Every structure is written in structure tokens, then in C-alpha cells.
């Protein structure tokens, strides 16, 4: 079998970028609110639909679609937290109740989107010109995705280290009680995290939708790798998420080559994330968090 290894590496970077954008919100809200939000997948789906409507149906193009989608989905994420999870937590809901609530929310969002946009898959109309760079086949869409993911990593890093808000986020994430006692408005910190997290998930959704198809399960289709990134990176750990997103990107793309060599179905690429998830839990449930300072 002839494998273009450079292309496999490049594809890993694409997959990693996508998973980073998708998982950042999940890991940060998971760390701050201490429950996994299963409805995070629906933020990704929402992004795909909004991106389709704005970018293709209204014909406004990718950049405007990205910005509008980010803010709209961010608002939805914030409202979900304010309307459902915060009041539930105040009523003393257990972590299981919060997880069940997130599944309930996920069904409400998914089937509402099914009602609005129907279950028939859509495809982005704009076809991206592919061009060759050395041995690589590249499209503009993929370059956008990688640029946004790298930009996000740099902006988030600077934001977390340099700004007051970033410091407040790190403080709240490592010890909410102490943060509160130090006069940090942890409520604001949590709300901003939910906003940004849902917005970034939606941006990931646009790229996922452009790469595959747009339908109510666009987000659910990648919920497994997103959770694997979160657990492998260490819950609530931004730097861990960056590392694990690219590790899982590599594992998936090289794994697919392996699956083809073994003559197995390539739909098992989801299984690779599952295996990584299980191994992490057995070997080191904290994930890669020990290699990075908490953020």
C-alpha cells in the first residue's frame, strides 16, 4: 500500500485542530462546573447549521458566518447554563442529575434543530479550491481551520497568563472557594467560560459540517473523540487539551492507515478514541494534567 505520510501528518493537524476547538469548551466548563455537559455536542451541531444558513443560504461567506455563529452559539451556551444548570446546582442537584439534565437539554436542542432544519443532510455549497504544496493536497478551508486553532491557542494562552480575567479563570478553575474568598466574581468567570466554550464548539461545527455533512447528529458524531480529548488532556486543563487534541488527531489518522492495512472498516476510527479513553482511565485518570500547570 502506498501511503503519503506527509498527507497523513497534515490530516492529523486538521483533525487535531477540529478536536481542539470542539473540546476546549467542554473541558473548561467540565472543570469549572464539575460535570460533563453532554449537550456540548449540540453546540457543535448548532454551529454547523448556523454556518450553513449564514454562509451558504444567505451567501455571506465564511468569515461573517464564523463571527455570527460564534456569538449566537455562545449566547445559547450561556443561556443553557443560566437557565438550567446553575439553578439546578443551586437546588442541590447531584452530578448525576446535572448529567441527566445535560442529556435532556441535548435532546431538546437536537430535535429542535431537526424541526427547524429537518433531518435531511445539507452540504456546504462553496467548494474550496484544492492546491498542491509539495506532496500535500491542501484546501483553503483546512488552512482556515488550522489558522483559527493555532490563533485560539495563542490568544487563550496570552489571555490566561496576562489578563485579569484569565488569571481569574485559572484561579476559579483550581480552587473556586479560594477564588471567591479572594474577591473574584466566579459567577462572571463561569458565564464567560460557557459563552466562549459554546462559541468555539460552534466554530468547530462549521468546519466539521463543511468537511462532512450538516444534520442534527453532526456534533454527536464526534462526541467520542471530544470526550477522549477532555479526559486525556485532564479535565479543565487547556494546555492538556491542546496536547491531547493533536495526539488523538495523530492516533486517528495513523490508525486509519492501520485499519485499511488490516482490511477493517475505517468507521472504526471512532474506536481509536475509545481505546485511548479507556487506557487513560486505567493508567492515569488525571490524564496529561501533570505535565502542564492548571489552566
Amino acid at each position, binding site marked *: 500500500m502506498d501511503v503519503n505520510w506527509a498527507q497523513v501528518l497534515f490530516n492529523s493537524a486538521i483533525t487535531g485542530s477540529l478536536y481542539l476547538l470542539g473540546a476546549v469548551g467542554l473541558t473548561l466548563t467540565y472543570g469549572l462546573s464539575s460535570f460533563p455537559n453532554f449537550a456540548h455536542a449540540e453546540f457543535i451541531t448548532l454551529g454547523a447549521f448556523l454556518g450553513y444558513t449564514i454562509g451558504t443560504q444567505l451567501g455571506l461567506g465564511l468569515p461573517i458566518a464564523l463571527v455570527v455563529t460564534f456569538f449566537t452559539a455562545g449566547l445559547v451556551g450561556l443561556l443553557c447554563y443560566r437557565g438550567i444548570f446553575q439553578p439546578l446546582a443551586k437546588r442541590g442537584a447531584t452530578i448525576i442529575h446535572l448529567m441527566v439534565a445535560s442529556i435532556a437539554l441535548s435532546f431538546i436542542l437536537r*430535535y429542535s434543530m431537526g424541526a427547524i432544519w429537518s433531518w435531511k443532510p445539507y452540504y456546504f455549497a462553496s467548494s474550496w479550491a484544492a492546491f498542491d504544496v509539495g506532496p500535500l493536497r491542501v484546501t483553503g478551508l483546512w488552512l482556515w481551520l488550522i489558522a483559527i486553532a493555532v490563533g485560539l491557542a495563542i490568544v487563550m494562552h496570552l489571555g490566561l497568563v496576562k489578563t485579569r480575567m484569565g488569571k481569574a479563570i485559572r484561579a476559579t478553575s483550581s480552587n473556586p472557594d479560594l477564588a471567591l474568598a479572594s474577591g473574584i466574581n466566579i459567577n462572571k468567570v463561569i458565564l464567560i467560560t460557557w459563552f466562549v466554550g459554546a462559541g468555539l464548539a460552534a466554530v468547530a461545527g462549521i468546519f466539521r459540517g463543511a468537511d462532512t455533512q450538516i444534520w442534527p447528529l453532526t456534533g454527536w458524531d464526534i462526541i467520542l473523540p471530544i470526550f477522549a480529548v477532555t479526559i486525556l488532556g485532564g479535565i479543565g486543563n487547556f494546555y492538556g487539551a491542546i496536547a491531547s487534541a493533536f495526539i488523538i488527531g495523530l492516533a486517528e489518522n495513523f490508525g486509519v492507515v492501520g485499519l485499511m492495512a488490516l482490511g477493517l472498516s475505517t468507521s472504526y476510527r471512532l*474506536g481509536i478514541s475509545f481505546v485511548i479513553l479507556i487506557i487513560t482511565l486505567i493508567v492515569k485518570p488525571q490524564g496529561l494534567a501533570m505535565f502542564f500547570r492548571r489552566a
Partner: protein
Amino acid sequence: MDLLLYGLDLLVFIGIFGILAISLNLEFGFSGLANFGKVAFFLIGAYTYALLSQIGLPFYLCLISGALVAAIFGLLISLPALRLRADYLAIVVLAFGEILRLIVKSEAWLAGGDWGLSVSPAISITGVSPRVDLLVNIALVFSCLLICFVVAQLLSNSPYGRVIRAIREDEVAAEALGKNRARYKVQIFMLGSAMAGVAGGLYAQYLQAIVPMLFLPIITFTIWIMVLVGGPANNWGVLVGAALVEVFERGANIAKDYIALPIDPSNLQYILFGVLILLVLFYRPQGLFKEIPIKTRALEAVRHAREQIKGEGG
């Protein structure tokens, strides 16, 4: 449409989902285990039944094997996560369900792929009307339900049941009293999975054909609704919950044909399910039927003595 047939068919479904609700109640209601992948064990039971019945095993052996295989998978999959927080188990089991569906979809040589498998009915009497056939099925399903119910009821009111409730309330305290929490959790998880396996077998032989599409995560969610609405840690309650949810689903299916709605009823049904869950979590987390407090002779004696002391003191 034969109304009686429809009612009997509904009863079979209530019985099968009653078993699933009882098993989730053991895990979540009594032991605080968040099994978000119930459908995985349901699938294992169904496919085990189908494969074994194809090689000609009698139906009771197929059912028992389904339960055993489901229990073994329950053990394997829960081991890495059970010693960790509740959320890890939820994520792992949910992922397991998705992977399992992927496997039965991809491995056409084993599980028939998208076309699924055909299954022969457990008990087939030649030349009887469909009504009698359904009655036989109801008898089979409800005997299994009865066994599961009695096991769950006896277990939850035994010393064992008090230990698992103690672990649910405070793991550390239970561990401090010398109870090995991981072992209890694994045992309950295996038992719950075995029951789900039986339910899967019954489902396969009743439908006489299974496809991967039958085992979507929505099944897990439906069972959670049954337990949450009926009342976690109350076995009678979750049976009522199972019946209510099944009747609601049927009702929605019938209403679909008669009422014109601005949105597609199949979407609306799941939106309503989600809203219902949120309402229950907000306003009645204990469900319709509350958990019955533990009663033992020793506890009664203590309560009695306490009241006497209070009486004398006052």
C-alpha cells in the same frame, strides 16, 4: 386495526422496558451508578440471543447466555471507571454503547450489518391466532419481569441493599465501615447488565428481527425517563414509570395521524421528553413514588427507645 392486539403488544413492550427500568433502578436508584449506556447491554442480550438461536439453542439457554455475556461485558467495561467518580462511568459506558453499535453495523459476517439478523420466536405453536401468540409472549416476558422484580425487591431490602444505599449516600463513610465499595458497585453493575441482557433477548425474539438502528442512545434515555419519573429507588415506582412512558409513546404515535401540528411530531415527542426530564429534575427529583425508608427490627427498636427517652425527658 385490532385494538386488542394493539393493547397486548403494548403490554409486551411495557414488560420488556419494565425489566430495563428495574435494572437501571438497581444501578442508579439504589447504588448511584450513572449507567448512560444501558442500551449497550440491551444490544448484547439481543444479539447474543439472535446468534445463539440461529445455531439452534433452546430459547431459555439463549436468554441465560445473553444475560451472562452482558454481565461479563458489564464487568469489563465498568472496571476501569468504577473506582473513579460517577461521571467517568457515564462517559465510558455511553461511549461503549456507540462503539458496540458501530461494531454490529460494520461486521456484516457476524451480526448482519445494517440489515441485522432475523430471530425465530422463543415459543412458536403452529396454527394459533396472533392473539394467542401474543399471550404466550406476554406470559414469557412477564415471568422474566417477575423474576427480576422479586430479585430487585429482595436485594434492595436486604442487608446487601442497605450497604449499596449507604455507598450511594456516602462512599467514604461506607468504606470507613469496611465495605469494599468497588466490589459492591461491580456486582450491582453486572446484575443490572444481566437483566438488561435478558430484556434484549426477549426484545429480539419478540420482534423476530434486529437491526443496529434499534439500539440508539435514545433507548438509554427513555429508560432514564422511566426511572426518574417513576421514582428512583422505588421498584414499584419505576414499573409505573415504564408503563406511563410506553403509553405516552404509543399515544403520541397515534395522535400523529390525527392531529396536525406545526412541527413534526416525531421531533416534538423527543423535545417533550427532554422538557419532562428537566421539569422532574427541577420540581420533583424524587419522582412520583418516593423511596421507602429502610425498616429493620433493630432500627425500629432504636426509634422506639429514642421516642421513649424523649417522652420521659419532656
